[in-house]
């Protein structure tokens, strides 16, 4: 594929992305009055993040055991109100350690 064509593709994708992300910002300036829509929008973030996190988290590393250990660590730390950095780095460390241990056992 020519470089020129790739540039067109990138520009087209960029345009779609920008429209999707900005149009609601510009056309929904007034606070929504409708109770259903208010509630819907209040619940959307949690619903989107949850469905993106699960079950994908279990296949996010090289095996399901290390991924599960990492996910459990993240859930436990988040439950005890640890911040984003602590949760993400600890979970990554747990995955790394579990995978190293599994290599040793093998």
């Amino acid at each position: 594929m020519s470089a020129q064509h790739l540039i067109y593709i990138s520009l087209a994708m960029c345009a779609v992305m920008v429209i999707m992300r900005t149009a609601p910002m510009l056309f929904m300036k007034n606070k929504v009055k409708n109770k259903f829509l208010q509630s819907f929008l209040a619940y959307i973030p949690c619903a989107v993040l949850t469905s993106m996190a699960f079950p994908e988290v279990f296949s996010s590393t090289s095996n399901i055991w290390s991924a599960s250990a990492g996910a459990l660590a993240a859930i436990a730390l988040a439950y005890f109100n640890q911040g984003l950095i602590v949760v993400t780095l600890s979970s990554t460390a747990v995955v790394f350690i579990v995978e190293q241990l599994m290599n040793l056992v093998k």
Partner: protein
Amino acid sequence: MNKTSTLKTESSFLKGLKDGIPVALGYIPISLACGIATSKAGLSFFMSQFMSMLIYSGAGQAAATNLIRGGETAIVMYALTLFVTNCRYILLSMSLAQRLDPSMNSLQRTMIGIFNTDEVFGVAMKEKGDIKASYFFGLATLPYIAFAFGNALGSFTTDLLPASLSSALGIMIYAMFIAIIIPPAKESKPILIVLLVALALSIVLECIPVVKSHLTPGWIVIICAVTTASICAVIFPVEYEEKKEEL
């Protein structure tokens, strides 16, 4: 602008920068993977970087890479695939628009929209009260830089990273989602139920072979989130108006 409000703007920008650090760290493995994938698909370093900086979305870039590898040339197909994989941004932006400081102008709103990614959105929504422009810009700065940096590193080094490390880094973004969703679910029963319904629905949908073979993960997320939020909105309508007066 008087001194105190300048200070306030500055500190909320700095607070945003700080809150953006974990997001930025989480983006490095994603964009690193994107960089590796695009360079493996045959893109030059420059082209990979150009694409990464224009298409600020890991899922969008992954979709583009797939199409490039498949030899697709129709631009419409790229645009459509991006739309489908990233449809949720319409929902996220609608939701974020409700929380923005009403005094913001259109340019600020546009800029916020452009840099509104899943994770930045998630962190921004944790703010109490209206979200200020300065806070959001602080928050969005480092993740964008990290995304570009990770991609450059990925396409430059391609497969130098040890497998053990890249495997562990893979969980980072999900650990971050978990860190965002758990604390509010502890405090509010409706949110807990939203979480549980979305969790169950997502796992069920992913496990049905017919669904999995016909729908992309992007669609599953949309269906799952819209269904969950609709059900819960009917059962637990929120009382925004009253909350506003308390504040």
